[in-house]
């Protein structure tokens, strides 16, 4: 996997070398056995490709690089260590399931330690829907190896041959004598460390007993009781609260600063380091009051405003972008009976995770520990090491299960800010971004312009397809349809606002444009939108989800009525196939668009946890309704005009349709991730439904902020 170029916010991974000898697992965890999985060389090289340099700079692994490890203690507790982060996608549960499967131990005996740079192996970051296809197999292998180690220990202890031994329910059983030893009993007195190579074979999908079924959310109880400590809940002895003084606008530079009044307040520390200005105080209220006394002026420079955005993106587009082509678009166009040329646009939208960016930073004995909700603990560790010019070995980043990210929490700015304040104050500092800061200073999903030219024959076959994406990105850009003459290109532009990863990346924009355009072509051809797609489709997996959604929705039986419409969309991204069909109603007199029903069919190979997968798909639909209908960041001359929930509308209970999900379980295919792909179908399905209801063709997201403009 290469890093998609549109992940602008990512940095290179650090050179990481793990040395087992120096780590005293057993002091922390007690005696037992540790099994580690050596990183597969080719997997690592692929993960590093496109940006990361590791170790000797060649991308190759060094001996001792471990991808994952687990510890089995004398009480039988199985502790699994992974650098992945839990941000609501529930990999804590699905990864526990796969370990339970391989180790033949109950999920309740398994504890995952996640995203702690001191304890867990290096990980590039939790993004790209990669956990299920890469981390899960790695944990399976290490768990399968651990199982074999336990069998060896039992065989030795009983002096029997391995072949009579069976592993089940957290014990090794002698099938002849019926003697049994719990894992804990087997590991007693051991301090055994074993590393295994990547050639262990985990359980085949058809034989899954634990994975493939729904399992309740691990630690669910701690969330419904309010006990779980998010970063924002953490308290450290002697902790102070921090606040940052932000520039008055993007692109502004510091003109003057006077912090004397703040500095004079007892208990307050003022930090000014270049253009970084912040305060700490014993309470958040006092920190706010202190911040308000700071006299600061900023020199602003003119910034591109929203009205000029789309023109600016086209004007500053990279002229040298090389398109990918097959066949000849010119030939295809001349063979066309009908042609269509349209432009589609998307605005910037915000992730708006409900838990804002936050960090608690503590310096102790020249070591820095930062708790923060990020999707890239090791990347943030690098940022901190660089910011403070200390070795990475002196920095520890810990990520508690976090209040969501959606791709927005890849960078470590709040960690760096908190650490800078803590350094000056000489005490731990908690820094929680306000909602206004969240809407202003985080990166956004890119805005973009997409231009499509196409040609069709009268029988509905697409003869030519040309697709240009300006600024928004190239994820999901290539068409999945069977077209002979294709030219597709992504053009970098100058973005007035800070932009970066968002759930699905540009696949949201590219699917919107493509699937609306396909609908327009279907109408041009006088064909049913689904039949038109089937006519131009060779991909069986895409066809399967389109058919499944259509059947569940009863597409053929849909009844037209005034102010009601139906729309369909389909696509493919990151190993997952999605089809979304919607029914909408136009409410009068407000002309509001109400999503009545949404049916999604999804296939991503073998399913690990069906209920959690359904949850992700439903959640994607709800979240996607926002970007489709009403979410947008409004801005002018370097200022965000709607940096709060009262002004930036997010989907609520009343926006939620009846949602049906059809899961297609392909046990013959390796599991792919599902955290992102399900979101890409909802916007075009809604756009197509709005056209069906009203005859109005909307080509810009958001489509109906404040209702349709009829």
């Amino acid at each position, binding site marked *: 996997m290469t890093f998609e170029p549109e992940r602008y916010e990512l940095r290179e991974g650090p050179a990481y070398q793990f040395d087992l000898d120096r780590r005293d697992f057993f002091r922390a965890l007690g005696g037992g056995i540790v099994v580690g999985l050596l990183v597969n060389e080719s997997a690592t090289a692929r993960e590093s490709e496109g940006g990361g340099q590791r170790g000797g700079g060649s991308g190759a692994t060094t001996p001792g690089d471990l991808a994952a490890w687990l510890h089995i203690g004398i009480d039988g507790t199985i502790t699994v260590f992974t650098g992945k982060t839990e941000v*609501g*996608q*529930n990999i804590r549960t699905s990864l526990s399931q796969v370990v339970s499967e391989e180790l033949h131990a109950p999920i309740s005996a398994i504890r995952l330690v996640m995203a702690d740079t001191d304890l867990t192996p290096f990980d590039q970051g939790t993004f790209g829907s990669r956990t299920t296809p890469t981390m899960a197999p790695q944990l399976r292998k290490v768990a399968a190896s651990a199982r074999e180690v336990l069998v060896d220990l039992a065989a030795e202890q009983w002096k029997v041959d391995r072949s009579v031994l069976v592993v089940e329910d957290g014990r090794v059983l002698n099938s002849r004598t019926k003697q049994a030893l719990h894992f804990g009993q087997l590991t007693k007195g051991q301090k055994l460390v074993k590393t295994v190579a990547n050639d262990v074979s985990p359980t085949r999908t058809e034989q899954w007993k634990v994975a493939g079924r729904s399992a*309740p*959310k691990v630690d*669910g109880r701690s*969330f*419904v*009781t*309010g*006990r*779980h400590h*998010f970063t*924002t*809940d953490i308290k450290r002895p002697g902790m102070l609260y921090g606040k940052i*003084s932000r520039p*008055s606008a993007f692109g502004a530079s510091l003109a003057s600063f006077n912090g004397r*009044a703040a500095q*004079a307040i007892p208990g307050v520390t003022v930090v000014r380091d270049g253009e970084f200005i912040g305060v700490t105080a014993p*309470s*958040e*209220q006092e920190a*706010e*009051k202190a911040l*308000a*006394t*700071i*006299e*600061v*002026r900023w020199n602003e420079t003119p910034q591109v405003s929203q009205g000029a955005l789309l023109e600016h993106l086209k004007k500053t587009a990279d002229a040298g972008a090389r398109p990918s082509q097959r066949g000849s678009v010119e030939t295809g166009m001349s063979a066309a009976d009908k042609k269509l040329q349209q432009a589609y646009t998307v605005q910037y939208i915000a992730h*708006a*995770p*409900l*838990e*804002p960016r936050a960090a608690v930073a503590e310096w102790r004995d020249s070591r820095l520990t930062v708790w923060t909700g990020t999707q890239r603990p090791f990347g943030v560790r690098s940022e901190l090491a660089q910011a403070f010019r200390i070795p990475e070995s002196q920095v520890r980043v810990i990520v508690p*299960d*976090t*209040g*969501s990210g*959606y791709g927005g929490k890849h960078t470590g700015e709040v960690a760096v800010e908190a650490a800078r304040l803590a350094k000056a104050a000489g005490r731990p500092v908690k820094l*929680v971004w*306000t*909602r206004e800061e969240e809407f202003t200073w985080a990166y956004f999903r890119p805005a973009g312009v997409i231009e499509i030219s196409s040609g069709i024959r009268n029988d509905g076959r697409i003869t030519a397809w040309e697709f240009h994406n300006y600024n928004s990105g190239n994820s999901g850009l290539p068409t999945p349809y069977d077209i002979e003459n294709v030219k597709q290109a992504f053009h970098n532009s100058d973005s007035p606002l800070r932009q970066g990863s968002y759930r699905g990346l540009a696949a949201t924009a590219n699917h919107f444009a493509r699937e609306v355009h396909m609908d327009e072509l279907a109408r041009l051809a006088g064909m049913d939108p689904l039949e038109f797609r089937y006519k131009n489709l060779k991909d069986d997996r895409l066809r399967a989800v389109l058919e499944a959604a259509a059947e569940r929705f009863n597409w053929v039986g849909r009844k037209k009525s005034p102010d009601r419409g139906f729309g369909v969309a389909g696509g493919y991204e990151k190993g997952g196939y999605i089809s979304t069909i919607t029914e909408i109603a136009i409410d009068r007199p407000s002309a509001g668009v109400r999503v009545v029903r949404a049916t999604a069919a999804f296939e991503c190979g073998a399913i690990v946890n069906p209920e*959690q997968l359904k*949850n*992700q798909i*439903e*959640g994607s*639909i*709800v979240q996607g309704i926002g970007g489709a209908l009403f979410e947008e960041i409004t801005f002018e001359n370097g200022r965000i005009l709607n940096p*709060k*929930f*009262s002004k930036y509308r*997010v*989907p*609520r*209970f*009343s926006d*939620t349709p009846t*949602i049906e999900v059809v899961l297609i379980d392909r046990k013959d295919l390796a599991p792919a991730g599902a955290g992102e792909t399900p979101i890409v179908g909802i916007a075009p399905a809604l756009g197509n439904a709005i056209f069906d209801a009203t005859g109005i063709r909307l080509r810009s997201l958001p489509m109906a902020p404040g209702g349709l403009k009829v």
Partner: protein
Amino acid sequence: MQSQSPLACSHLLTVHGPPSWVWQRLAYTSLTMPRVTELNVNGIARKLDIDSERSLLSVLRDELDLTGSKYGCGEGQCGACMVLIAGKPARSCVTTAGSATGKRILTIEGLENNGRLHPMQEAFLKTDALQCGYCTSGMIISGVGLLRDKPKPTDAEIRHAMEGNVCRCGTYPRIVAAIRMAALVGGAR
């Protein structure tokens, strides 16, 4: 968190800043502002000494270590901070500690009974009505508040009552199912 600040236009002061005499006046004013010395939280009289203008949310979280109620927006728009005051749902981020004095305050931490989960909490687990879990405290409290007011709400009534609670992960259908489930087993207590 936005506590009620006597400086209503504090955003202007980031540019101009007050002269020191204003600051001295402020400090004096703070000292003479009313204090809150006791709050009734989850059935227990908690002793404190805080400025009555502080948000109830910040007092619960930072003074009383009840971090189950969350900060999501500070402007009463997202519901992550919901508590029950005298049995009615209240947004603690825009409620002053002073206005909550002398009233029964119930937070998420007070729902459990001797280790037994409240039916609403059980229902949220059964329907998997959470993903990241950050909105969950506020959702559960709002749900309990609704059932106390309407023990058998329709789905439409549920959605209407919960409109002020945001779940960015999009688990709304499951939350409606959870509240419906809790209503069946008498989740109004």
